[in-house]
Each structure stands twice: as C-alpha cells, then as structure tokens.
C-alpha cells in the first residue's frame, strides 16, 4: 500500500521537486499491503480518492471504494495532475455506499465471490471513514461500549485483511501483475468531551494498529510561517510502520510512550482553490 501512497505523492509533486526525489529516499518504510490514514476527515477522503484514481489510471488496478457518503465529484487536484486519467480508467473504480456497519461487513465479505471471474477481482480495497461505521456519535463513557467498539473495529479490520489476503491468492493464481491486493482505510479520531477523555479514541485506534501495517498520519502545520496569510494550508504527512513500533515497544522494559516514531515525512501544500502539491520533507 505504501507504493500506492508514494505514487500519489510523486504524481502530485512539482517537476522541480520530483527531480530531487530518488527511489533510495523513499525506502524508509518497508513495502506494506495495508495502510491506515489517520487525520482530518475531508483531507483523508481526498487522499483516498487520489489513491483510487492514481491506482486505476497509473497502475491499471481495479479498485473497490467503500464510503458512507456519496461522492459527488472528483477533487480539483485530480483534474490536471494525473496523466493517465481517462473515463476508461475511472471505470476500474467501483464505488459502494454501505450505510451501516453491518452492510459494510456484508459488502466486504461478498468480495470473494468475484474470484470466479478474476479480471473483476479488485487489487485495491479502500474504506473511507471507519469512524462513521465504528464509533457512536455520543461520547463513549461506558467501558462496555468501548469494548464493543473495539470488537467491531477488530472484526472489520480482520475481515478486510483476510479478504485482501484471499484476493491476493486469486490474483497470484491467475498470474496477475497486480498482485498483491492492497488495502487502505481512513480513520478520524473523535473529539470527545473532557468527561470521556481520549480513552475511547485511543482504544479504537490501538485496535486498528494491530491489523494495518503502516499508519499514514496527516498533521496540519499551523505555524505562522506556513500559512502565507491564509492562502494555503500546509500539512505534514508521516508514514510509519505499525509493526516496527510494536516490536520496538515490546523489547523495551521501560514505560516509554507507545506513540509511533515517524520514519518518512512528506509535506502537502493545499491551496484555497483545492490544488495540491507534495514535497518530500525528510526521513528519520
């Protein structure tokens, strides 16, 4: 999945910046099949749409895109920046709008039936807005409800990962160059009240981190120097491996924070008219 995200970033990098980006600098994060985008809802959604369109047009992947809210139009950033964007490429993306958690489970569980016609098997599964399906709208104060949300998060994540694993076998069995089947989802931590604290938010995200290999964190840079008088937004994008963080945490005996260590950073310049430009910042 990191290859798809990196392709998105490179596609929307200016020519001058792209010349400075070499493959060696992009190898900080190990190749992964699944990624979790964590951050502000609208930007995550745009990022996932970019991933879908880029994968379909540049890599020829068949994409299955699930989201609760219907997509009315493609982001402005796509209109002139994705070279291979054609109606034929867009037809490779199948959009599905499950309204509830249960409907989402059924849609994902039914993907295995496409294996009878391998060309229709998706090579990229995208689920936008997990919080819409997992989290209750009210602040979660009950431990029982927190456990229920965690279990739902685990069930959905495991089903997605297991389905992607099965579709990988199908693609490989038929000699498809599009294997493995990749998975990308987005999740926005909820802003709960002081009474509920951050326990319920962290608990769901902690469960999601068990199943997805890479976390892509979107963090807005609110420093004065970056806003340029409010004409654009600047976002820091961190790609970090969840598995490496967990193994590192287990080896240490001290009680250091289990916050992830960012290993690769991009910067996103978002103009008021919706145009996007990525820059490779630094790797740690």
């Amino acid at each position, binding site marked *: 999945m990191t290859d798809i995200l990196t392709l998105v970033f490179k596609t929307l990098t200016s020519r001058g910046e792209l010349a400075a980006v070499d493959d060696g600098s992009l190898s900080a994060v190990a190749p992964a099949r699944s990624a979790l985008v964590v951050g502000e809802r609208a930007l995550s959604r745009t990022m996932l749409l970019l991933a879908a369109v880029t994968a379909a047009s540049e890599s020829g992947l068949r994409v299955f895109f699930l989201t609760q809210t219907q997509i009315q139009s493609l982001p402005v950033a796509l209109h002139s920046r994705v070279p291979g964007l054609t109606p034929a490429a867009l037809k490779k993306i199948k959009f599905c709008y499950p309204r509830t958690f249960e409907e989402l489970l059924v849609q994902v569980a039914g993907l295995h039936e496409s*294996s009878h016609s391998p060309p229709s098997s998706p090579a990229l599964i995208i689920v936008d807005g997990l919080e819409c399906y997992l989290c209750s709208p009210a602040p979660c104060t009950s431990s029982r409800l927190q456990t*229920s949300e965690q*279990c739902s998060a685990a069930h959905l994540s495991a089903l997605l990962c*297991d389905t992607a*694993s099965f579709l990988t076998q199908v693609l490989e069995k038929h000699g498809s160059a599009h294997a493995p089947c990749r998975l990308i989802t987005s999740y926005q931590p909820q802003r709960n009240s002081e009474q509920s604290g951050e326990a319920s938010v962290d608990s769901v995200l902690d469960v999601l981190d068990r199943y997805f290999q890479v976390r892509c964190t979107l963090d807005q840079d609110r420093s004065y120097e970056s806003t340029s008088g409010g004409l654009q937004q600047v976002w820091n994008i961190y790609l970090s491996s969840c598995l490496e963080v967990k193994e590192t945490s287990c080896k240490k005996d001290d009680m250091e924070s289990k916050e992830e260590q960012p290993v690769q950073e991009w910067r996103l310049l978002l103009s008021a008219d919706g145009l996007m430009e990525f820059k490779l910042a630094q790797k740690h």
Partner: protein
Amino acid sequence: MHFSFLPSVAEQLFKDIQKIYQDTLKFVFGTCALQALDLVDQRSVTCLSSPSGRRTFQVTGGSGRTYTCFVSCHFCPCPAFAYTVLRRNEGLLCKHLLAVYLSQAMGVTQQEAVSDQEMTTLQPAHRE
C-alpha cells in the same frame, strides 16, 4: 487415537508428550492453553470452504456456541478475545483461535463445504 492398540511403552510416551506440550503451551498462552486442547480433543474446529476458494474456521465452544474465526489474522467474536486480548492486551489469543492453530498443526481439523452465498453470510456474523 486408539492408544489401546499400542504397546504400553508407546502409550506412556504419548502421555509424556502430551504433558510436555501442556506445560509449554500453558507457559506461552496461559490458562486458555488447556481449554484449547480440550476443544481440539473434542474435534471442535471445522474449516469451511466454498467454491470460490475462500476458507474460514468455525470453532464450537464449550457452551455449544459457534465462533467464526479468520485464517490469516487474529479475530474471534468471543467475549474473551474482546476483553483479554483487545481491551486488556493480556493475552495473545483466545482458546478458540489457539484451538484452530493446534488443530491445524495436529491435522485434526474437520472439513466442511459451503456455498459462496453461505460463506458471505457467515463472516459478517458479529455475535453468535
């Protein structure tokens, strides 16, 4: 397994092996190890497969409830997995998932064929 057909020395050998495995499993997996071995003894693990090639596992618990578990990653809808593994992070697996691994390792998993539609409806079953 029909121990009565084996010489007594072989029967004792298998009992010793069983004891060693129980101690090692218990050390690694805690109290659910013996519970998982009981499930294996009862042949509680079934591998369901459909014409599409999709596979999943079902484990019949001690209470008679059936839990649908995944092959490639860890999830079980039982309360123990939700509380001990996910919430408290105090266990690696629940007894049902461990029973799946043990049954596969020992070659005692039951096999059952289902239709593609049945497979689709099985996996969203959130609670049994």
